[in-house]
């Protein structure tokens, strides 16, 4: 490791250092509550964010294993924001336990490191390492509430299926290494362009397994079975972190991998992805309609959003000005914000024992907490993709790119799906405003979670009204991605 390598990955190093610092703080400066741990984490995340935001240096670090450019900077900022909000939600959620679950803080930091490595990785080895750093931290986070059997089972289920899918991913990588002769993505891309792979069994099997492995992580149907159970059983802030962070990191890696192979993959691959995209969003939306438990509803909605993002993957082509990739980046950032908002609502109303959050529990929430209800309305409108919220622009960018690429039918199916999805998102809003509150309905209010919700809602409205700057950041990210090949 040279000094220039270290300075290129400064944001990742600062978050790593932060994770270690939180562990040390807990070991040597044990106090009641979790405020001091939150403070240490926030300080290090803020330093990392500053480094990520003013990264004018770009280049390739560690002999081509990681790339530091606008693409990784965009995702670094996304993950840092996700981690900050998660900490805001979790610090009070876990402080309430008789014994505060201090492991939450370092694990969130290390999972964030994994996500950042995944987004910056330009070598299959680093993609795998980032993915596992993220996943192993998340297995523990899902199982964090040791008093709740639900949480333990969620962690175990996530671990078995996650390890199973990682094995597929790894096998795909091994076969691609065998057929292209390298694990370094740009070298692979050159090899792919030079030789025809039409009849190469290893190459096609490799892509198939790679897609299965990534499909598990992004909750693509038919590899989505774990999602509802794991989200339902995990502590609410962790479920939000999973939904927002894992999806963004996996799609970042997927984008880079797909760009590597696209010249050789051809129409059959695109047709296959179209089928996956349609099935994923339709199944996700239809099953979400039938849910009465908010956490499960959001899990199926996460599956549907993976389908919308796959529309972008279908339409993407490696170029500096690719509109589909720009749409994906924008969508991922916005999805992270609105989804965290929805999970903040669950954090607010769920009991600490991991009980199920029934939709009826929100009846009449507007009567008691008008500000919170207004925020939730923004999140739900944004998830449904209604202007003037940011979710609308995410969908516009992705679907417009699909139409421009000639996938009009796919874009129409995606629009019809969005219309179906409106029903179950708006149901939450209707329940809050139109019904009388139930007796045992939620009455308390956690100021920290409330503040996080207000910040998220304002950000979503702001991006919705002025999508330009964020779209410009996404565009810069895409042109940096194209430059890294």
């Amino acid at each position, binding site marked *: 490791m040279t000094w220039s390598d270290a300075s290129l990955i400064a944001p990742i190093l600062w978050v790593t250092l932060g994770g270690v610092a939180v562990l040390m703080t807990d070991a040597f400066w044990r106090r009641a509550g979790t405020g001091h741990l939150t403070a240490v984490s926030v300080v290090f995340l803020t330093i990392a964010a500053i480094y990520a935001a003013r990264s004018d240096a770009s280049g390739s670090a560690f002999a081509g294993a990681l790339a530091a450019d606008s693409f990784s900077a965009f995702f670094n900022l996304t993950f840092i924001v996700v981690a900050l909000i998660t900490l805001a939600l979790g610090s009070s959620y876990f402080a309430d336990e008789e014994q505060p679950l201090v492991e939450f803080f370092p694990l969130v930091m290390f999972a964030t490191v994994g996500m950042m490595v995944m987004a910056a990785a330009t070598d299959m080895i680093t993609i795998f*390492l980032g993915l*596992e750093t993220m996943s*192993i931290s998340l297995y523990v986070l899902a199982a964090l509430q040791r008093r709740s059997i639900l949480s333990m089972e969620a962690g175990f289920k996530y*671990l078995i299926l996650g*390890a199973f899918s990682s094995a597929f991913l*790894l096998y795909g990588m091994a076969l691609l290494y065998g057929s292209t002769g*390298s694990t370094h993505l740009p070298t692979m891309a050159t090899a792919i362009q030079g030789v025809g792979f039409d009849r190469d069994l290893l190459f096609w099997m490799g892509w198939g397994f790679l897609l299965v492995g990534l499909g598990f992580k992004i909750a693509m149907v038919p590899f989505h079975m774990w999602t509802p159970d794991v989200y339902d059983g995990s502590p609410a802030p962790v479920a939000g972190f999973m939904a927002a962070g894992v999806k963004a990191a996996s799609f970042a890696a997927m984008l880079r991998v797909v760009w590597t192979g696209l010249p050789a993959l051809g129409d059959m691959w695109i047709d296959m992805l179209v089928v996956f995209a349609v099935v994923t969003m339709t199944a996700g939306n239809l099953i979400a309609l039938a849910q009465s438990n908010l956490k499960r509803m959001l899990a199926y909605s996460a599956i549907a959003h993976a389908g919308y993002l796959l529309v972008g993957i279908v339409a993407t082509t490696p170029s500096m000005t690719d509109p589909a990739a720009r749409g994906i980046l924008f969508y991922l950032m916005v999805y992270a914000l609105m989804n965290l908002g929805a999970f903040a609502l669950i954090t607010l109303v769920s009991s600490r024992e991991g009980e199920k959050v029934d939709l009826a529990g929100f009846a009449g929430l507007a009567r008691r907490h008008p500000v919170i209800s207004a925020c939730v309305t923004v999140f739900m409108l944004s998830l449904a993709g209604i202007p003037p919220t940011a979710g609308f622009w995410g969908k516009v960018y992705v679907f417009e790119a699909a139409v421009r690429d000639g996938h009009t039918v796919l874009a129409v199916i995606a629009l019809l799906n969005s219309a179906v999805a409106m029903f179950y998102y708006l149901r939450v809003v209707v329940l809050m405003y139109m019904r009388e509150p139930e007796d045992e309905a939620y009455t308390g209010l956690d100021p920290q979670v409330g503040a996080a919700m207000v910040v998220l809602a304002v950000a979503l409205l702001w991006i919705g009204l002025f999508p330009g700057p964020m779209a410009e950041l996404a565009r810069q990210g895409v042109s940096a991605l194209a430059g890294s090949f």
Partner: protein
Amino acid sequence: MPDLTTLHVHLGHYLTLSAILFFIGVSGVVFRRNAIIMFMSIELMLTAVNLTFLAVSRQLGDHQGHVFVLFALAVAAAEAGVGLAILVEIFKRRGSIDVDDFRKLME
């Protein structure tokens, strides 16, 4: 009886063997209900992948596959550590490691 002195083992054999091992692992995860056996099957899948990496690496005369295997081994060990810890905790509470008993989430 084949003449063993002329029998050559080359890349194709290694790839076939690792594919067979991998799918033995897959069927173990899919069909067995004992959590420990499922873990062992996942380890078998990862080992099969490592064999592919090493065979290819040897064939190409390239070191990247070796590096990958070292990382994959470390990751597999970490995963098993976390998995067994969670499993012990579940066993303490439930007295069973049969995954068909893990049904609380589905209710």
